[in-house]
């Protein structure tokens, strides 16, 4: 029964991932991404990782996707801005490349004797300590004893990410003639003098106002 559910949710998650990648509207893509994350969390449950299944729903479906939706709605892109012009040659090339990647991975998986001789993953675990390996208690123990260093480093990583996100999204005062400009903004103003981006910007702004 577990294996059957896994097969169904596996096929559905591939379909959901394909829909995320191909939808034109990013909002539709995000909704399919929710479906994809929920299906993957179901797979985690069957593979005896209940804690990860909950964390998947909380962190991915709850936090990261809300962030995506929030940014999409903040940008409020118009139909014209969403239009993409990917050539058929490029799509075909990317299709061949990713199919080739899948073929290569599949070949590697199929020729490995370790993978071939592995038993049933949906079977119940006999040892009671091993059966608890995916539960909150065991993961907490491992996280704060064996993997304490990695845990501390990941907290530093998240701190840096928070600082970076705040710095990048902070509104800075537009002082175009100030002498304390960084070299990057200097380059930008040079380019605007070269009339590369400025007319397109103006046209787009007029279109938005109209």
């Amino acid at each position, binding site marked *: 029964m577990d294996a059957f559910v896994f097969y169904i949710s596996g096929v559905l998650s591939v379909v959901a991932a394909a829909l995320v990648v191909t939808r034109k509207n990013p909002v539709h893509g995000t909704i399919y991404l929710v479906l994809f994350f929920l299906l993957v969390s179901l797979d985690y449950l069957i593979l005896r990782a209940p804690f990860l299944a909950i964390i998947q729903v909380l962190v991915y479906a709850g936090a990261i996707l809300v962030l995506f939706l929030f940014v999409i709605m903040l940008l409020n892109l118009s139909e014209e801005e969403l239009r993409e012009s990917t050539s058929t040659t490029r799509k075909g090339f990317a299709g061949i490349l990713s199919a080739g990647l899948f073929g290569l991975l599949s070949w590697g998986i199929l020729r490995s004797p370790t993978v071939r001789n592995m038993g049933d*993953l949906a079977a119940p675990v006999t040892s009671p300590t091993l059966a608890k390996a995916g539960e909150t208690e065991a993961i907490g123990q491992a996280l704060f004893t064996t993997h304490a260093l990695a845990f501390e480093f990941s907290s530093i990583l998240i701190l840096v990410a928070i600082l970076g996100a705040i710095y*990048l999204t902070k509104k800075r005062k537009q002082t175009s003639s100030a002498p304390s400009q960084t070299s990057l903004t200097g380059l930008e103003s040079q380019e605007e003098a070269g009339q590369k981006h400025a007319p397109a910007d103006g046209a787009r702004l007029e279109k938005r106002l109209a």
Partner: protein
Amino acid sequence: MTLSLSFCLHLSAAIFSIGVYGVLTRSNLIVILMSLEIMLNAVNLSLVAFGRAFLTDLTRDPSGPQVFVIMVLAVAAAEAAVGLSILLAVYRKWRTTNAGEIDLLKG
């Protein structure tokens, strides 16, 4: 009905390839970031499958693979936060989210 490790790994490989296809074909930066999340999830799925497969009495650290997945999750969250704020900064400056139009470094 049995569930083989081979099927889990094939599933993971298929999802990863779909993510690669998305990164290669789409030019909307939001969708590219979503494809990256799909690829990270594919890797997580294979990690969990391996962790379940090697859950024997000889395993010294049975929760290890799942701790690894939590680390990947932390990196994914950090990546999404920084990536989306870069996207916002880029949109503020150039009024576009199209990866093809952001070509300041192009010679």
